């Protein structure tokens, strides 16, 4: 059918669901890398040292800020869903989802402030 048949997706809450999904996938992809780095400590600290020095590069730090954003977003999005599904209904979910995104952005911002 036409490209315009998916108009129901032009909605902040649909976007919230999409971001929740994508942030979850990104975090799941990151987790093995995270464990791999932790594993470096086991075989003597040398390689870990090298890695930690690399992680002080500005670009890598910026990416860490992104990670904080994704993590907070996924956490708050998950809490919102648990709330919807387990407690009496509360309206204004668009505003709540927006607030979750703002808080996540603020968390990432403060994280970067501390790092730089």
């Amino acid at each position, binding site marked *: *059918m*036409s490209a*315009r*048949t998916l108009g*129901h997706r*032009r*909605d902040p809450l649909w976007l919230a*669901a999409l971001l929740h999904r994508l942030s979850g996938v990104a975090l799941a992809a990151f987790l093995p890398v995270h464990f791999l780095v932790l594993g470096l400590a086991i075989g003597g600290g040398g390689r870990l040292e090298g890695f930690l020095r690399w992680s002080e590069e500005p670009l890598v730090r910026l990416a860490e800020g992104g990670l904080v954003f994704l993590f907070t977003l996924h956490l708050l999005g998950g809490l919102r869903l648990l709330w919807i*599904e387990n407690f009496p*209904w509360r309206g204004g979910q668009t505003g709540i989802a927006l607030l979750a995104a703002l808080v996540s952005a603020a968390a990432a911002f403060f994280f970067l402030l501390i790092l730089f």
Partner: protein
Amino acid sequence: MGSAPDELEVSLWRGGEAGRYEAYRVPLKENQTVLDLVTWIQRYLDPTLSYRFACRVGMCGSCAMTVDGRPRWTCRTLVAKILKGRRLEIGPLQNLPVIKDLAADMRPFFEKWQRAKGVFAPSQTRREAPAKIPPQSALRIAADAAIECINCGICYAACDSVRWNRDYLGPAALNRAWTLLNDARDKGNAERLRAVSGKDGCHNCHSHQSCERHCPKALNPTASIAGLKRKTLEAYLTGRIAG
């Protein structure tokens, strides 16, 4: 195809599943509904156009179509309120097979009402006195919030979980099951809980709220389904339904 200032270019889906959009020019009038546009085309341009409507006042739920990508009740949707520019695209409801032109085949939708046990199972006969349900009882209030459904299928067409799993019972059937679950006169709840907790039941719902966003009667199937999720979990934990 351009259109004069007092005209609109209306693209309609023509044919079955493998159809295509065809453009028509329709005069713009005051207080025109989307259904009026379709009717005008059928009366004056092409009498073979197929579409469905009955009440024209938002009661029967038969006139739902996809209008510029969103499912809407066309008899109560004013063109002036949704028009952006001079074009409008109208197709059959999504997530359902197409019979012809703008008429979607509603059978899968209603079959799911049956599968969700959306049928009242009376616990009394007509020989007994009518049940007394206090308007302020918690059950009655829960049922009230979900009861005004007109079976239009709009929520079903807007639900991506239906799009991804064609067997998912969908928001309307589950919303109906929720009203019956809260009906003190009904005795079918054991079976109903089993029906809505199965593989294609309420746990398919991702709480996107697309159904709630589009329901023309301002119902909230997401909330009803959340209620079903809680009730089915409770029934599972207390051993009333198997996993």
